[in-house]
Structure formats: C-alpha cells, structure tokens
C-alpha cells in the first residue's frame, strides 16, 4: 500500500468514527426533547396535600390558654402529572419540606429547635406583640400533621391550600382572641372584640415559617 493510500484510509476511518459519534449524540438529543416536553406544553397535574404545617401559639390576652392546630401551609404534596406530547407520559412526585419534625420557637432566647432543622432552609419571622408573657413561655410550636387529623374529609389541593381550609381557632366568644393563617405559611393572633381598651382590634402575635426549598422524589411511568 502506498503511503498516500494509507493516509487516505486513516483519514477516512477517522472521519467515519467522528460521523458515527455525531449520529450517536443526535439520538440522545432526541430523547431529551421528549422528556422536556413532559413538563411544558400539554402538561397537566393534580396536587394533593398529605401533610400540613400547623401552629400552636398563645400570644394573647390574660396569659391564659394556647390556641392550637391552625394549618398555615402545606409540608408535603403528592403530585400526579401527565404530558401528552408524542404519546402519553406519566410521572408522580412527592414534594417534602426539608424537615417534618416539630419546630419550636422560644422567645426567651430567640432560638428555633427541631430534629433536622436547618434555619437556612426556612424563611422565619416571629413577633410576640403586646402580650409577650404567655403560657408555655411564649413558645410557638410548628407541627407537621396529616390533613385527615385536622379536618376529616377536607381535601387540600393546590387551589385551596393557601388559606389552610377552614382554619381559625378562637379562645372564646367573649374576647374573640383568635389564631388564624396570615397569607402563605404565616399566622397571627388577633383581637377583634373585647374589653381591651386601646388594644382592642390589634394583632398581638404573629409569625412566618415558610420552606425556602423543597426536596422532590419522582417516578416515571
């Protein structure tokens, strides 16, 4: 074989190998296109809350009684999704907050404690207002509970979870010292009525405990 012929063969083989590599990667690109489509156009999904964050707090008048179990947001979602591009594709996901163990705020030393709790994963605010000296040392407890425990039969979906269902807890009709949700993942204790003089109709305590990130596990079908 002449030298020029060898060179032609070597160059020909190199070009063929490169061509096959391009063909291989173009097939992979096509696979990516299908999966991207699953999360975009023609994408439908259902969301159902399977765990809620609830708050227990006093922060109210006369240092008596703790108001409990008011849902302020969702801590776990079950998602079923369907994409109908290039044939039906299904996937399910579980969305979880970074922790689901009770978190306690202690106003005495302004600390938050809880198993696996990392403050970087949450957006937190707490304000004990005009009645700071409350039962349980003014502690605020954030618990993670099943919706069925709090409100049997009520289904929390993406459309109605924001307000926490029918959540409101009042100590009595006489003072209307009520704990209720305040926007997403927030809460407040409010005096709407009562013999409180200048303090009548005021927010006496409030807080925010919002997850700053979610951890998701999914399965493709």
């Amino acid at each position, binding site marked *: 074989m002449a030298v020029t012929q060898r060179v032609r063969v070597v160059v*020909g083989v190199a070009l*063929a190998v490169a061509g096959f590599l391009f063909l291989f990667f*173009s097939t992979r690109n096509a696979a990516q296109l299908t999966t991207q*489509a*699953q999360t*975009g156009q023609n994408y439908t999904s259902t969301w159902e809350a399977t765990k809620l964050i609830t708050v227990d707090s006093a922060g109210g008048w006369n240092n008596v009684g703790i108001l409990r179990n008011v849902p302020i947001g969702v801590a776990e979602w079950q998602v079923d999704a369907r994409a109908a591009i290039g044939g039906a594709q299904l996937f399910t996901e579980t969305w979880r907050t970074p922790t689901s163990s009770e978190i306690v705020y202690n106003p005495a030393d302004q600390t938050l404690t809880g198993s696996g709790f990392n403050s970087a994963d949450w957006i937190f605010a707490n304000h004990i207002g005009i009645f700071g000296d409350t039962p349980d040392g003014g502690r605020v407890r954030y618990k993670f509970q099943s919706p069925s425990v709090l409100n049997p039969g009520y289904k929390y979906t993406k459309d109605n979870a924001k307000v926490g269902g029918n959540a409101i807890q009042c100590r009595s009709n006489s003072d209307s010292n009520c704990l209720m949700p305040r926007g997403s993942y927030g809460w407040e204790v409010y005096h709407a009525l009562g013999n409180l003089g200048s303090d009548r109709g005021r927010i006496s305590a409030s807080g*925010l405990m*919002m997850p700053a990130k979610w*951890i998701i596990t999914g399965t493709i079908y």
Partner: protein
Amino acid sequence: MKVRKIILIIVDNFLAIGLFIFAVGVLSYYNSSRQNAVSSLPVKTSLTERDIAITEAVKNGKKEYTFTTRFIPGVGVITDPEAYKKEWEQQLQEDSNKKAP
C-alpha cells in the same frame, strides 16, 4: 480475485466513504440540536430542575429521580428570602398599626 478487487475498491474510496458518514453524522446532529432548541423554548417552565432530573433519569435508564427546588407551590420562586421576610414584616407592621373600627 473478485473479493480482492472489492476490497481494493473500498480501500481506494475509504476517504470518500468516511467523508460521507461524517457529513451524515454532522447533519443529523445539527438537525436534532436545532429541533431541541426551537422546541424547548415554549415548553420551559420555572421548574428547570425537574426537566434536568427527568432528562438525566431517562438518559441513564432510571425510573426514579430526585431534585431540590426553591419554587414554593402557590407562592413562586423566592430568589431573595431576606427581602421576602422584610416585606412580610413591613406589611405586618402596617396591619398592626390599624385598629378595628
């Protein structure tokens, strides 16, 4: 003798064959990349983490995938948690100063 002739023809034209395969490969790759870029534009959502996770799972032949996101369902993507907290506190302050009529 015939086989030898065929081999010689292939060897003689190896460069041309290689060039042909290379051209087909490049064209195919260019076409798929272009389609991918055009199609992905309208389907992108805020959940790019999900896109990446599913893409990787499919690529590796896995059914399970996992990812984290700062997208808060019902709220949106919070890019600045501190700013969100400050805004929440400011609104609280304004509401706290209000009294019942």
